[in-house]
């Protein structure tokens, strides 16, 4: 693996920046180099937000994405804006209730992250981590152990338990479907 470019995008408030932070930290735990950058609007919630993570065994010079290998879209508007630079052989992960218009010729993994978070955990807040669970299982980009450790290091102490539960809900999802 020389360089993998991952974009996690959605709306402000969906936790896409935190999700990128967790992924980057997990990659570092696996002995890789990682750089995470972010872009969000001036509003607290609802504006376009993205988090970009570059993972590489080499030193990472330019910190932004030019050609995206893996993209997670948590909203339709984010998908529409950012899908253009996803590689043809790239993979797409979408929140299946919030992103319905999909590009025709791309490998798409549909994950009902927001619904699962709301139904199983009582709040949509953990949709980002549910998504990371599914993402980890399918891509095998980082190990689940590294992700669990990164979650512990990245979220507020009082939400650790529920975030680990969210991760597991996403991680086992493909098996049960």
């Amino acid at each position, binding site marked *: 693996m020389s360089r993998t470019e991952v974009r996690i995008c959605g709306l402000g408030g969906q936790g896409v920046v935190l999700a990128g*932070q967790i992924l980057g930290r997990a990659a570092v735990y696996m002995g890789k*180099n*990682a750089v995470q*950058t972010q872009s969000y609007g001036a509003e607290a919630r609802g504006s376009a937000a993205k988090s970009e993570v570059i993972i590489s065994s080499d030193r*990472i010079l*330019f*910190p*932004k994405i*030019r050609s995206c290998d893996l993209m997670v879209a948590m909203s339709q508007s984010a998908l529409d804006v950012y899908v253009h630079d996803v590689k043809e052989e790239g993979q797409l992960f979408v929140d299946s209730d919030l992103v319905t218009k999909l590009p025709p010729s791309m490998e798409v993994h549909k994950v009902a992250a927001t619904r699962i978070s709301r139904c199983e955990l009582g709040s949509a807040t953990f949709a980002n981590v549910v998504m990371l669970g599914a993402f980890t299982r399918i891509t095998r980009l980082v190990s689940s152990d590294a992700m669990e450790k990164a979650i512990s290091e990245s979220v507020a102490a009082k939400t650790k338990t529920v975030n680990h539960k969210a991760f597991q809900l996403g991680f086992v999802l493909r098996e049960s479907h």
Partner: protein
Amino acid sequence: MSKVLSPGTYFMQGNKALAEGAVAAGCRFFAGYPITPASEIAEHLAVRLPHVGGIMIQMEDEIASLASVIGASWAGTKSMTATSGPGFSLMQESIGYAFMTETPCVIVDVQRAGPSTGQATKGGQGDVMQARWGTHGDYASIVLSPNSVQEMYDLTIRAFNLAEEFRTPVILLSDEVTSHMREQITVPPADHVEIRTRTPPRVGEPYFGGTLVPPMPSVGEGFDVVVTGSTHNEVGLRFTADPTVHSALVTRLVGKIEVAAQSMMDCETFNLDGCDVGFISFGCTSRAVYEAVETLEEQGISAGFVRLRTIWPFPEKYVRELAEQARVVIVPEMNLKQIYYEVQRVVDGAARVVPVNQIGGGELVTPETLCHVAKEATDKL
């Protein structure tokens, strides 16, 4: 929590690394007012400083923030504030006061797209000239420019050291990308890091003259501390009409930085000896230059760069050295030609200087754009 971050490798945000660098440098007072993209510095220090016996205070605005930082420094405490463009504008008057009163302190400006409120969450590099000339009157500034999370830590320590060494405010000029970026950082053992502290004067020794950088007393230690932004003599007494007192004071204040400019110039350089195309960049933009130079070399175009870690005093020596070799000097920056004109002045016709300017939306100039510009420029030779 330990006094200084334990040695080791961390995956950390730039602003947090800056805050930890400040703690390692001995900063024990921070005053600020929240502003994107600098707020994480205050947030982190609000948690961190009380653990090391320090104080973080949120003031009513940026004017009061820097004023209290200056006061804390005179009370003998290493002090810092952090802001972004709009707050940096409000601080300009007090920056002049800190310079005139020779008050060591660190002022962080995390640049975003201005002028005015501009694009609050998007990065930019448009405060380069403000950092040099923002306050009124004759003035010399020291401005450092990090381009990685590691340098957010390292250059913050250097900023505190320079502030103490020269008894002057030092500006750490970051940008949204470098401040919000998370990447690996290696924290060295505390005894591997040089930390400068101020020397108090001997009894009767003047502390506003007598030598290029006079010793500095603290209030409450028995010294007769008189501090004024008005023109003052060697012992701090006001002289608001005498031309010789003013000339001596301000010439010394500017001179102490000009004299040391050579030793302060700090640049990262690559392939200065044999390059055809040279880049001059700073901050987040330089991350694109690294990759562009590699790509150009692979394509048989010899490329090199000077990356300004100290922007002011302007590292003329390195720029001149690059221009002696390179036929084309490319200056990418996220503003409309602020460093370009400075480069042109120093290059003085020795090479063709080509600007690459991109503003708005916080998007970085890409390595591809730089390669394209380099190829076009060399084709025309």
